[in-house]
Each structure stands twice: as C-alpha cells, then as structure tokens.
C-alpha cells in the first residue's frame, strides 16, 4: 500500500485506470500494477452495444456473456495483484458476471492463489427477463431522445440493463472482496467506489461523491487524459509508445491529483485533462449518475507538478430517484462498400461512380432507409467545410465510400453485389477492391430510458478462491 504523503495527514489512495474500453491496450493493466505503487486498478469494459453482443453469446452458451479478454489479462496480473494487495474493480462481467468470476477463480487456482483471493460479484442490473413485468406495471421505458414507449420495439429487444452506481461495488469491497466483477456498473462508479470505501464517505456527502465522480470521468477513458488523443501541442507530447495510463491520487476531503507512473510517456497537463473533462459532456452543471449529480462548472484545475494536475472545488447535488436503462434492440441491416479512384480527376470520377451506382440501385427498385456517400481524402470527416478550402482537381486519390441501411436484408445484400462491377463498367482509374464484397451487418440500436430506482435491486455475492 502507498505510504502517507507528508506527516500526520490522511493517506491518499491511488486508483489506476487499466482499460478505457473493451479492446484498449492489453499492456496497460500490467504496466499499472508493476510500474509503481497503486491501491486499486479500475477497468472499464462496457459500451452500449457491448451488452447486446454479450447477450447473444450467452444465449448460445450459458457459460459466456462476459468480456473474455479479461480472463487472460487477469491471469497475467493476478500474481502481482495478490502479492501487492491491489484491489481490482471491473465491469467485465457483462451480462454474466458469475461466469466471469468463476473463470477468474479457475485461473487463480491454477496460479496457486487458493485461499488468497476473494471475488465480489455485482448483479441485478440485467432487466431482460423482467421487461414484460415492468411494462405491465406501467413502467413505459420511454426513449429519452424520441419520447416513444419501449412497447414500440419490445419484440426486437436483445438486452436491457440498468446502470448501477458505486454502492454495490462498495458493499463488495466492505465484505473483503479483492476483485470486484460487475455487470452494467457506470464507468465512474468503478473509480468512486474505492474512494467511498477507503474514506468512508456517507451516501449524502454530495460534494465528495461528485468529486469522486469527476475523478472517475477523468480516467474512465484511460490514456485519453494522459496524452492520448490530445490535440493541444500534440506533436510535442513525449513517447506515446510508452504512454502512462492515469492514476487518481484521492484524498478524504474530495480533492485529488491526476498522475502517472514515473518513467512513462504521455503528458498530464491542465489542457489535456480539460479535454477529457468535456468529452461526451451534456449539461456541465448536471452530470447525472446513480450516485449524485456532479457540477462540472465548479471544477478547479491546477498544474501541481510535472505530469500532475490537482483537481478541487467540485460541488455536487443529490442523486435523482431514477436509474438510466440501456436497451439494445434489433434495428435492421447495413453495408458499406469502398473503391479508390486515382489522379487525374480522382474526385470527379468518384462522384461519377456514386451517381452511376445510385441510378442502378434505383432501377433495381431497391429501397433503403438511407444511402450515405463519403469521399475519403476530401469530405468524409469535415463535409462541405473541407471542400470549401480544397482544390479537389489536384487530389492524388479519393476513396469512394458508400453505405446503405434498410430493414430488409435482400436489399442490402443486392447492394453489396453492385460495387465490384463498377471496376470494369464505371468511371476509370479505379482500384482498391482487394477486400472483396462487403458483408451485410445486423444493426443493434440503443434505446436509452429511465426507471424508478426502487425497481432495481443490486445483488452482491462473494466467491472464495
């Protein structure tokens, strides 16, 4: 454990971010547990769509439905984690936290860690089996964006999960869990829970809970606050190959510092931390979580040392009586095809090919909800804003990228067969079809809603290894 900084003052707790999403850098958690002292390792795995993919895997095999990568990753770090007494919080459990915990327990036994590890399992977020009961009792789960009731798409629902907050994770930690594996717990809750546990914060200490929530938001995307994807002065950010993932050094009074292990690359600056604070921000005065409402307009930042930013002043308000619910439902099909056109007139040729293709689709009588064309190298990311400042005649090449979306699979399938013919029967100087015919993809869409808190009961179990 980390020694107290200074004398007599309360001890800081060091919470390290190991994964910002499922698919993040596999080296990061290992480097966090071995690169210097930490007390907690926090790993965020779940995006909205992830739950539906996991639900599908579980329906095929009841022993699946969690982030499978988490298990070999834990195998690699568990010996260090146990030896150093580091605790882990991770929402890798997906829609099957028990199976995930069992898989980690099996690995721990293989590593001869029996008797030295207690795994906490947090469930209760999964509402899929309870949906009809909830709807019947008048919980309409209206879409937060469109206002439509969930009954509109009920027959196409693939997953439904309430976002749990920090408290069930705190419960697991209080009962001695070394590793806490959860289902849909908020990203911020995974960082806030260790602070509540370490400092014994009360459930109505809104400013403190808001501070911990801001800490969680700052590190939940991993290196995105320590030099990754940072626009300010980006060319001079040192050694991204060796980037250090962020560590929160939290104090009982709710102030904290963002730091990283010595000798790592990247940069922790006020500008970079600010970029992360505004990332995916809605109303900054009301950042709503299950635990509190954090007011981001009260945050004070200062550079307190090299690669060290101090955060203070955070104010919070009482939590609402609702939980956010994320429903995943089947929406339809899509496919995206690409071709590359070369100089001269690359831009014009790609535009012409788009026109030809659209005429053919129309004559085939195919109906799409949307046809979307982009010319990569010209307007794909900045649209007409880019074209206004570009001499398109000189472009050395342009990638034509056309996507279609439809409720009907046959229309999308036929579209995928209309790309290749353009190589021989469309505009000239075309290449880049090596990838073959595009594949139609199922679209699983996301339906955000609110549910009364009283309808959801988090559950904490312990697995002794």
């Amino acid at each position, binding site marked *: 454990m980390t020694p107290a900084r200074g004398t007599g003052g309360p001890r800081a707790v060091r919470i390290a971010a190991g994964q910002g999403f499922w698919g993040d850098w596999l080296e990061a958690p290992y480097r966090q547990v071995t690169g210097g002292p930490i007390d907690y390792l926090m790993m965020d795995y779940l995006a*909205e*769509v992830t739950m539906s993919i996991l639900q599908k895997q579980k329906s095929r095999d009841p022993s699946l439905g969690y982030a499978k990568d988490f298990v070999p990753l834990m195998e690699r770090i568990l010996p260090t984690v146990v030896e150093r007494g580091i605790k882990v919080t991770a929402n890798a459990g997906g829609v099957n936290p028990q199976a995930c915990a069992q898989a980690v327990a099996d690995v721990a036994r293989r590593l001869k860690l029996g008797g030295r590890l207690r795994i906490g399992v947090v469930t209760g977020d999964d509402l899929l089996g309870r949906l009809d009961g909830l709807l019947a009792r008048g919980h309409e789960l209206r879409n937060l*964006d469109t206002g439509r009731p969930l009954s509109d798409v009920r027959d196409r629902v693939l997953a439904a999960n309430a976002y749990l907050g920090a408290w069930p994770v705190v419960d697991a930690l209080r009962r001695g869990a070394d590793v806490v594996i959860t289902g849909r717990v908020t990203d911020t809750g995974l960082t806030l829970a260790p602070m509540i546990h370490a400092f014994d914060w009360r459930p109505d200490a809104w400013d403190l809970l808001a501070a911990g929530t801001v800490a969680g938001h700052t590190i939940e995307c991993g290196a995105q606050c320590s030099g990754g*994807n940072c*626009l*300010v002065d980006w060319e001079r950010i040192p050694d991204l190959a060796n980037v250090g993932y962020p560590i929160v050094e939290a104090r009982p009074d709710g102030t904290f510092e963002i730091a990283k292990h010595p000798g790592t690359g990247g940069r922790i600056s006020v*500008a970079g931390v*600010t*970029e*992360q*604070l*505004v*990332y*995916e*921000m*809605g*109303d*900054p*005065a009301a950042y709503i979580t299950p635990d509190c409402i954090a007011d*981001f*307009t*009260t*945050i*004070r*930042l200062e550079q307190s040392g090299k690669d060290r930013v101090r955060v203070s*002043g955070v104010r919070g308000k009482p939590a609402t009586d609702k939980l956010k619910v994320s429903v995943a439902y089947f*929406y339809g099909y*899509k496919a*995206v095809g690409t071709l590359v056109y070369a100089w001269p007139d690359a831009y014009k040729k790609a535009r012409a090919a788009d026109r030809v293709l659209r005429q053919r689709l129309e004559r085939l009588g195919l109906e799409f909800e*949307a046809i*979307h064309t*982009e010319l*990569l190298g010209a307007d*794909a*990311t*900045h*649209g*007409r*804003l880019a074209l206004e*400042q570009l001499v398109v005649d000189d472009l050395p090449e342009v990638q034509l*990228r056309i*996507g*279609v*979306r439809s409720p009907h699979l046959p229309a999308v399938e036929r579209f995928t067969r209309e790309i290749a013919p353009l190589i021989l029967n469309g505009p000239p100087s075309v290449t880049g079809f090596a990838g073959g015919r595009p594949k139609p993809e199922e*679209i*699983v*869409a*996301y339906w*955000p809603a609110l549910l009364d808190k009283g309808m959801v009961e988090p559950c904490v179990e312990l697995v002794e290894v």
Partner: protein
Amino acid sequence: MKRRASKRRVRLAQLAHARSGDKGDTANVGLIALKPEYYTTLVKQVTAARVARHFKGMIRGPVERFELPNLHALNFLLHGALDGGGTISLKTDAQGKVFSTALLRLEVELPR
C-alpha cells in the same frame, strides 16, 4: 494608401483546442481556450447560432451551448449530427470524434 482594417480574421484553431464525442445522435464539442484571455472572445463570437450556421446542412437538429468559465471552455451539443448515431450511422465519424476540429475551422475576429 488604403487604411488597414481594424480587425483581422483568424481560425478558431489559433485560439482554442477541442474534443468531441457522442451521445446517441448528438455530437458534443468541448471548445477550450488556449489561453484564459481568449475565453471572452469565444463566449462573444462562438454563439450557438454561429455554430449552427457553421454546420448548416451537416446536422439536422438545433445547437445548444453551455459555458464552463472555470475551465475557459464552452460545450456545444449538435443534435441530429450523426445519422442516427452509434451503430445505426453510416458515417465514418459515427461517434462524432472529429466534429472537434471541424469547429476549429470557424473564423473569429480579433483586434489588430
């Protein structure tokens, strides 16, 4: 000799940096002053209406603006920016990651 204009136009990229992300079909752009003294210029000139005009034809819904004077930052919500958003969207930038730099193309006026 012609008198020089009292104002010069610069791109926002010279005064601010930005990061953007998504929430459903809405893109958010956090715009941050590179120096605290630039913040007033951002507040005065980068209005919700101005940003809506900048992205005209590229987004379907309204633009909302929030102020974070403590961080010398503005947060914009661009509604209907992502062709349905997330998995539905056919856009390369389905998650609105580079609306940030698209906003930095906007021009503002500075005194000479």
